[in-house]
């Protein structure tokens, strides 16, 4: 029988928190970059929203 010290539980708890928060931050960051890239591609193709067109045409 392997005896697990209480330290293992402490490290596991902090490790789990770090993993979950890292995954969350990674998702937010990658999602942001993907959305920015997609919007840039639309702009390159000339697809714009009515409000963007109005902003560009107004003096």
């Amino acid at each position, binding site marked *: 029988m392997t005896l697990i010290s*209480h*330290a293992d*539980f*402490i490290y*596991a*708890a*902090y490790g*789990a*928190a770090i993993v*979950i*928060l890292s*995954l*969350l*931050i990674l*998702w*937010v960051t990658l*999602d*942001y970059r993907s*959305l*920015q890239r*997609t*919007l840039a591609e*639309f702009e390159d*193709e000339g*697809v*714009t*929203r009515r*409000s963007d067109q109005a902003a560009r045409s107004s003096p």
Partner: protein
Amino acid sequence: MALIDYANPSKFLSFADRVVPWLIGLTVLAFAFGLNQVYIAPDDYQQGATVKIMFVHVPSAWLAMFGWAVMCVAALGTLVWRHPLADVAAKAAAPVGAAFTLICLITGSLWGRPMWGTYWVWDARLTSVLVLFLMYLGVIALWRTIDEPSRAARAAAILTLAGAVNLPIIKFSVDWWNTLHQPASVFRLGGPTIHPDLLVPLLIMAAAFTLLFITLHLAVMRNEILRRRVRTMYLLQAQAAPGH
């Protein structure tokens, strides 16, 4: 610029772009200070070093409930005040709140094994927090099920407000039922029962986690606004296609 001006998605995006980097810096500093305080904090006379799990578990639990409370306010903003960014705020809070609830459940289990001799008991506190986690997953699934954002927003808002009944159940579960989970030791009528040597690091870590929640919430709101712009672009592209 008045607060109401940030109801405009474009103005909010520019606000988020300015504020999020500062919040990231503040959050990093807060965690650096907090983790240092955790490291030097003394052991508890009963829990020993295992008390250090509490510096992650307790703030996560607070933010798990805070996340749902934010969603409730946003739901009222959607249904009652028709605020333009209310449903964005509600949708953005769900994954962040779910993550903190999961951290609370896992760290609680890892604390419970050495302290109680078990990873889990079906007592009122643990069960109601598990229900909260499942409710978060349910709201996230509901958002994904309905394509049209305003219809999804109304359905999610109603589900969120119905789920608000779980918040006082979680908070008062340790008073209303005979639970293994201990009663409140910080937010209680007679004041905190924790020694300042442990209370101060706990509150610093709570502040750091709160800054992290706010940062992530703003960042996810920003992503959601961009996602709706992408959806609009796809619709415009489809309308402009030949034969449409």
